[in-house]
């Protein structure tokens, strides 16, 4: 009797999570079957069943000579550079959240929060058209510079390969700052009031309260997010770099995801791009576990 109710109980719990397990199976595990394409000589319209098995040929072709190695290294270097900048400044949303909650004028605070969160919902394509209307040779900024007599010929902001990593980081930060701050704001709201009271009784200034009460309480949240960010170190997305890429900045803007896209969609080298994305997955898993191990060692807790 008891065991039956237990069983039905656990069956019910299984039913609760089954939709998510199915989603995971459909969207995370089923696509892995696509990895077989990396081992075949596949070009549409010839179906996979009629393609030749080539083993590790495509993996080898990535590193078969110095030029290709250089190209791949440049791409990985860009990926590390742009992701690295992101991680270097990953504390920005946290600091932003802290200062935002310090604002006492509610209306003003809500206004700032709305304004900074909105860009997150604008697609990169629109962001680029905004960038274009501002920074192109006939754009607002060049028009202004020309009007004030600061320059006599238009500056090619979008076509220069200089500071691309920084400009990309700046665009991404502008777009996601408010959105990323939401979690931290929630964490701040969860801090026990008595801690504040105790600090003020001890005569702490506002800054000291932030330093000794707020920041330490935010750390767990920050580290979890940081770990997730490191795990997706190689996935810095594609849309942003895809819309901003052109002949002049391609060398410095091409990150792994974009490289895979350009190879597959631009050149029809599906098999090669599958091979690269497989390598990417492997590296990501390694990164996640190493960061997790590090976190366990240093802070005694991890996420996996």
């Amino acid at each position, binding site marked *: 009797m008891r065991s039956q109710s237990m069983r039905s109980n656990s069956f*019910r719990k299984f039913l609760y999570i089954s939709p998510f397990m199915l989603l995971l199976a459909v969207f995370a595990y089923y696509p892995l079957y696509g990895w077989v394409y990396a081992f075949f000589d596949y070009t549409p319209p010839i179906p996979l069943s009629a393609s030749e098995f080539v083993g590790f040929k495509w993996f080898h072709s990535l590193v078969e000579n110095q030029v290709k190695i250089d190209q791949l290294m440049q791409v990985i270097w860009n990926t590390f550079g742009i992701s690295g900048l992101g991680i270097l400044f990953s504390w920005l949303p946290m600091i932003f959240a802290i200062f935002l909650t310090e604002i006492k004028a509610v209306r003003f605070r809500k206004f700032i929060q709305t304004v900074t969160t909105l860009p997150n919902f604008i697609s990169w394509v629109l962001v680029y058209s905004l960038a274009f209307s501002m920074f192109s040779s006939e754009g607002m900024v060049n028009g202004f510079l020309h009007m004030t007599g600061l320059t006599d010929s238009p500056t090619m902001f979008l076509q220069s390969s200089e500071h691309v990593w920084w400009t990309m980081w700046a665009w991404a930060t502008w777009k996601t700052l408010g959105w990323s701050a939401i979690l931290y704001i929630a964490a701040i709201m969860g801090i026990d009031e008595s801690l504040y009271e105790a600090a003020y009784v001890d005569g702490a200034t506002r800054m000291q309260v932030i330093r000794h009460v707020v920041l330490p309480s935010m750390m767990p949240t920050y580290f979890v997010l940081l770990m997730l960010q490191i795990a997706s170190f190689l996935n810095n997305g594609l849309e942003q770099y895809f819309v901003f890429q052109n002949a002049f900045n391609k060398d410095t803007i091409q990150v792994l995801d974009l490289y895979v896209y350009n*190879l597959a969609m631009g050149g029809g080298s599906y098999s090669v791009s599958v091979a690269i994305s497989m390598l990417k997955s492997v590296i990501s898993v390694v990164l996640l576990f190493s960061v997790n191990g590090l976190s366990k060692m240093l802070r005694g807790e991890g996420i996996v």
Partner: protein
Amino acid sequence: MKAHIKLGRKSALLLGTTILLVTTALSGCSGNSNNGGAAAGTAEPGTPTESSDPGTSKGIDHSKPLTITVFDNAANYQGEQTGWYGKLLKDKFNITLNILAPQVAGDQLYKTRSASGDLGDLLIIENSQLEELIPAGMIMDLTDMIKNTEHLSQYVDNHFKPFNVAFEKQNPDGKIYALPAFTADTSPTTFSEELPYSSPIMPWDYYKGIGAPKLNNLNDLMTALKDMQAKYPKTPDGKPIVPITLWKDWDGGSMENVRWLSNWYGYEQPNGTTTIQLNAKGDIVPIVDDNSMYKKILQFYYDANKMGLVDPDSPSQDWNKVSEKLTNKQVLLLWYSWQRGFYNTIERGNQGDGNVAVPIGDTHLIQNSDAYFGNGRVFAIGSKAKEPERIMELMDWMSSPEGLRYYTNGFEGFNYEKTPDGKFKLTEVGQTAFQENTPVPAEYGGGGYQDGQSKVNSMIMSDFVTDPETKEFYNSTYWASTIEANKTALTTDWQKTYDATTPTEYYTKNNMIDIVPNINTSLGSDSSDVKNKRSQISDYVKNTSWKMIFAKDQAEFDQLWTKLKSDVEGLGWNDVFAVDKERADKIVKMRADAIANK
């Protein structure tokens, strides 16, 4: 007991939700995405046609509306064909065209759709794609269907059969799978156009405004452009005038703007190759050779940019922006023959205003003869197309006198009219309908004339076919009436200056042009290995070309070139070059044969 029932309900509910969730998730990634939602070729029950034309239908039922998915490499427009041409097809055949344009949506459209096994109903694709699609069983055999057509059947023996038979590997039985596009009905070695496809073209009034200096070489050209720019910095309505404007939309294996200027000095890059240039003698030069014409033209653009002659918008603008500039006469140097049409009109010609050929002394053009065997693209029907006989009927009509007149010239009575001697003559409206996008009368469907033109942007038989009624080409430029009307101040002034009736005649007379037979045949398709390398090399060449033109100084230009040469080597240049050389050798050989058989 009660709890049990409750649980059952809950579980059922959960199960239901789960199934729902998963089905929606799965339907989200079903592979068949059809733009516009209309399932390809689905005939829905609907209204019968207003005027089914008994003249063309041979027992074909037009009562059901049909939407044809047109996969069209030539189109610059994606979506449904609307406007007057759309109405024409709807009224005549009860057909709607849904156009898919890789030029708009990107090349991956071909890859993704061909991987799914159904490219579309009517296909306008490159020869090399045809060679991939026939073995994949995605192209319908038209041999029997074409026999029963009224108009296309007359071109089978001279044009379609030789073209199809050449694809020996894919087509050992000599079936007819595809109809070459833009086929001219003249001869394999004549060149009928009055202006070569690519040659220097400039606004006549500006050129005369700086004293019409004699141009001996590209340096003279740059000086002249500089002077013109100084004298005419802005259009009358205040838009900046740029001497040279470049755009990247059509860059394929190399930079298209460089490719076509190479033609001025006798080197062409044949379709189907990306690494070589070829001259009339049959010399094959790799484009990364230090002495290649490709490099010389890059140097010319770089020098021009250093002199401030290149439009700063070039790297970022698209073709639409360029055509806008051409329409406003904001560009001083043109090269494609069809670029004149954006500004030139008879009315302006009467005031001596318009773009004309301005020959440069040291040029020696290379020009392909009329496309007797087509231009490198083909019309084919997808093997999964529903109601192929209706698509065939449409293609047949496109190649009929009526279809060709509509495609090239619009409406009788609106764009052109009959003259007493039974020929055609452009009306006042017809002369400028394209440029001004003149509103079309409501009875024809309304909208602008240019907006409503065929967005297929390609035809099977070209306008260099003789209209049986008038005994003139369909192309209105070559009508006696147009030539007469075109005796404007501009034309006569030009003719007096250069002592020739047309630019083609001038170039021929002065031995400044080589007309090579047009070769359009099977050149084979790349193996995936070569395809892979080709695409990486092309990408690299294009990007470097743009960078070189906008380089800071000559040192950077040279350094980029040196790096390009060594890097493409590593990307597999030799393999791709070997394939291209083989193709070029075939072209050279066939040209020699064509000239021998003349």
